[in-house]
């Protein structure tokens, strides 16, 4: 596959230590498109090896607005279903530029390992020094070891090592959209995580037309008034979670965006630092970056102060446990009790619809009306929207906000980028196969 692709699938067997690379057949892209279309195909191909498939969308890391997302596809040991977790922040981008469109991790290691993926090369590295360390310590140590602060990680903390049903695969230092207990799947393979860094280049079949159309789509998006908002508080406000803006204001530092995403979906809370501080804080860990709006709202509903909510979110991110599960299942109402309950949480977090996509994303539009009327119609729209976003690599929260992102222009750009002729019928078939 010559365009919009590294042309490489990495296949790693943790049991034998074998590392192989496959090329990506153009015919397969014509049939499966990319993202979770391909990760689902690869899961089915290697199913007997209980694989974890990490991937990128066909448009990930391009000039298509919000082309930020990668994906983790695996069978959740909690739900028993094949599930797809979006890879957000700048981690999805780094997977592709580290030299691989897809990574198949099969088998199980005898000892703790991590995968170091960089510039088209991959190594299985000893993680015995990282095992037992929390998510923040692990990411910091990997960055220090490699000597690169821009190293991007997928990592588990103690929750994943201990096999908690609510263990998350975290990204860098932060909680993730993982509501499937994928941290437990990593831990069961003795896989502490993956580290990505790369300076690759992605070729484009029709670069001038691709970039021109990207700009036209961006201009259309910028005409939409919802971009006057920023951050998690405004998103919760749009979802009728009242009072969140006032709650967050005293600790809100800045809002930031995933790669090339016009809406800043992340908000940093400063917890032991002046949130109005503009120069670099002299404290090493002044706060927490929040992307999980429902975890935030759930801690607020427990009656926590905003500072304690931030500290609870920070503790969850370090431990590598789903903060929404903690907030809704712990049965505690004080910070000390909540953070002391991580190993004893029991229960279930509901996964909407067919159970394929994360409830980290609201099961309804945000800011804009997509012309939906009934609950059934909304759920069907949401599942298809999530599937399409994760086929092409679109930031899945932004996909729920932005009607200017259409299947039509995603296919148009995919065709300009690849030189293939992907049709609506192809997309329908891929979505049908994923969603059943």
């Amino acid at each position: 596959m010559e365009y919009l692709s590294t042309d490489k699938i990495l296949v790693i067997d943790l049991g034998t230590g074998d590392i192989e690379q496959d090329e990506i057949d153009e015919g397969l892209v014509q049939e499966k498109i990319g993202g979770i279309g391909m990760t689902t195909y690869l899961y089915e191909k290697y199913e007997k090896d209980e694989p974890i498939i990490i991937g990128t969308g066909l448009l990930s890391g391009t000039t298509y607005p919000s082309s930020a997302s990668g994906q983790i596809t695996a069978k959740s040991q909690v739900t028993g279903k094949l599930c797809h977790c979006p890879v957000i922040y700048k981690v999805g981008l780094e997977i592709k530029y580290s030299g691989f469109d897809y990574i198949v991790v099969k088998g199980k290691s005898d000892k703790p390992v991590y995968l170091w993926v960089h510039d088209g090369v991959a190594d299985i590295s000893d993680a015995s020094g990282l095992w037992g360390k929390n998510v923040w310590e692990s990411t910091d140590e990997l960055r220090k070891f490699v000597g690169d602060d821009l190293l991007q990680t997928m990592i588990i903390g103690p929750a994943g090592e201990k096999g908690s049903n609510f263990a998350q695969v975290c990204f860098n230092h932060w909680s993730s959209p993982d509501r499937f207990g994928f941290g437990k799947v990593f831990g069961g393979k003795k896989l502490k995580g993956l580290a990505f860094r790369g300076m690759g280049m992605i070729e484009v079949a029709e670069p001038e037309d691709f970039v021109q159309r990207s700009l036209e789509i961006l201009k259309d998006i910028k005409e939409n008034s919802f971009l006057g908002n920023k951050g998690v508080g405004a998103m919760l406000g749009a979802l009728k979670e009242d009072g969140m803006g006032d709650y967050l204001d005293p600790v809100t530092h800045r809002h930031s965006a995933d790669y090339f995403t016009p809406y800043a979906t992340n908000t940093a809370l400063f917890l032991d630092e002046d949130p109005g501080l503009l120069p670099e804080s002299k404290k090493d860990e002044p706060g927490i970056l929040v992307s999980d709006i429902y975890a935030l709202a759930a801690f607020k509903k427990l009656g926590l102060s905003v500072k304690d909510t931030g500290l609870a979110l920070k503790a969850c991110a370090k431990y590598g446990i789903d903060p929404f599960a903690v907030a809704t299942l712990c049965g505690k109402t004080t910070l000390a009790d909540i953070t002391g309950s991580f190993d004893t949480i029991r229960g279930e977090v509901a996964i909407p619809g067919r159970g394929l996509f994360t409830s980290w994303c609201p099961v309804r539009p945000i800011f804009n009306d997509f012309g939906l009327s009934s609950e059934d119609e909304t759920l069907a729209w949401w599942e298809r929207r999530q599937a399409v976003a994760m086929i092409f690599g679109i930031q899945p929260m932004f996909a729920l906000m932005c009607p200017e992102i259409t299947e039509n222009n995603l296919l148009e750009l995919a065709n300009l980028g690849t030189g293939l002729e992907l049709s609506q019928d192809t997309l329908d078939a891929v979505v049908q196969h994923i969603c059943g």
Partner: protein
Amino acid sequence: MGIKINALKCTNCMACEMVCSYHRDDGFAFLSACIVAYRAREKKDYFGVLLKEEEVLIVARPEGLEINKIGEEADPDKKADASAKPMLLREGCDLCEDMDDYGPMCIAFCPVDAITLD
């Protein structure tokens, strides 16, 4: 005429870095951008934008603009990040003079209008 950066408006999305590199390389990469989203202080939520012009390196920090003349001795009190890109080896900003349909790409593609023409 030059590029003006409002670091407080910036959301650190890296669009500027991507399209600047595209202007140089005709592909998607981050190899040769003369404008870079500074993001090495992730835990501190400290980010801004670096821009290399012909003779100066502009550091657009949240607290204000810093302009360093290239070739002058660096401030010994300021420690560079291990991951600092070799910005000084890259070509300086040419305002995308060959991109007739766009003007400077970083301005055209900034989703939050944090970059403008001065």
